[in-house]
């Protein structure tokens, strides 16, 4: 299940790959300009992804026992 770590590629693709398409001010979401909202949303998604990776990464258990 070490392959779960491949999920960590997503923040790079999403956050940066999206930039050319979301580089605008409107619409405002949660009070923020769209570009800023996009980045903030990806920061939160990143935390969720890291939590999923942590939960399923066998290396975490190995190091706990060590």
């Amino acid at each position: 299940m070490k392959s779960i770590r491949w999920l960590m590629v997503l923040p790079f693709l999403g956050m940066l790959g999206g930039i050319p398409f979301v580089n605008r001010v409107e619409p405002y979401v949660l009070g923020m300009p769209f570009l800023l909202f996009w980045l903030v949303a990806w920061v939160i998604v990143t935390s969720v992804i890291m939590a999923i990776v942590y939960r399923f990464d066998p290396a975490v258990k190995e190091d706990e026992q060590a």
Partner: protein
Amino acid sequence: MNAALIIIFAFLLFSLYLGLQARRGKDMNLEQWTVGGRGFGTIFVFLLMAGEIYTTFTFLGGSGWAYGKGGPTFYIIAYGCLAYVLSYWMLPKVWKYAKEHRLMSQSDFFARKYDSPMLGVLVALVGVVALIPYLVLQLKGLGIIVSEASYGTISPTAAIWIGVLAVTIYVMISGIHGSAWTAVVKDIMILVVAVFLGIYLPFHYYGGIQPMFEAVEQAKPGFLALPDKGMSASWFISTVLLTALGFYMWPHTFGSIYSAKSANVFRKNAIILPIYQLVLLFVFFVGFTAILQVPGLEGSDADLALLKLSIQTFDPWVVGVIGAAGLLTAMVPGSMILMSASTLLVKNVYQVFVPSATDEQVAKLAKYLVPVIALVSLYFTFRGGDTIVALLLMGYSLVTQLFPAFVLSLQKQNFVTKQGAFAGILAGVATVAYITLSDSSVGTLFPSLPQVVQDLNVGIVALIVNTAVTITVSLIPFRSVRADAEKRVV
């Protein structure tokens, strides 16, 4: 004496007390002093790592960039987040290797991995050359914050001397334990101050965050997105990638990895830290609010946006709390920098040339070097002039040059030789120096390329040169040439 001044001094004394009591019950050998005896849990490591983001530069510069540059400021949120993703993968490997070999500094890691003390010397020197201007930047920020927040009753010079004195004392006595304890106060302060200002100010002046952004958009259409040229989308993406790679290459950040007590500390932190750095959002909100409320701050004066707006809005005691938070954002990274720089110079430069020095002598010398480095930084802070500005611009790019040799050394079978690593770092550093001193951009170096390429962060060029040289030189079989020559002599 006004209320602001009393509050700033109270916090200074409190953090000095915390910094000093942190020593209690510890035998301060080099391992305790510089990496906390490798015993820090999730919270301390979290605070030390988070401390690297909330420096005076983010406090003043984050709001200053929002005020002066707009949309491009958002890169700060993106690079931290991606650096933490990388940390999940890289940091446990570094930590395990460091524990196994009892490493104390960043340079130790390179020297050990490549089995070359001379490579260690080079890495240490690159680190120190990047660290000192970074410390100078913190000190200048400290001077600005305290003198503004004290309504001019303390001059920047006096503020800087007082701050440096406090940091030097607790670093010499408590080492990284002092930094960790003051980081606790600092993070609570900055959290409260940033969230409060970032919400209160837009509501106070515009009745909300969206109305504030709408007013800015009306006054400066497109300011809240990236421009088509210059700091465009391709600038954004390349800058975020470069800074995310360089993030952990700062010697004091790298060194704080060793202080953890287990590898899972980093994996847990990689979940929380991305969200935690969203506190920076509120710092940005303050900068955007200031645009129409304290207009006319040009150039580096933009960094004063947060303080000017706060002074205009609040009573002195609130300004005092903001000043105290600002003071701490300089002191915590400042203490880590002082400690790392002296450890590097003593352990990775001095001890290489004077191998007879005992561990005890090295530990003692490292502590005595702290005030020396502090004085050198003070000298540059007061009379640095243009040299220090050039070094500052180079700092981040310089440490990023350590990345190729570092990341390749994490492979199970590393094909990079010590000669390759050495030559690559040198070539990268030379390229950074040339680019900075000649004020080049990708556009000036390659004017015929399309705009998308021209806007790329010029640091990419140095990293490509570095990687190419590292790989090419590694393919030259130095060892076997010498072995052949020896055979022939025999």
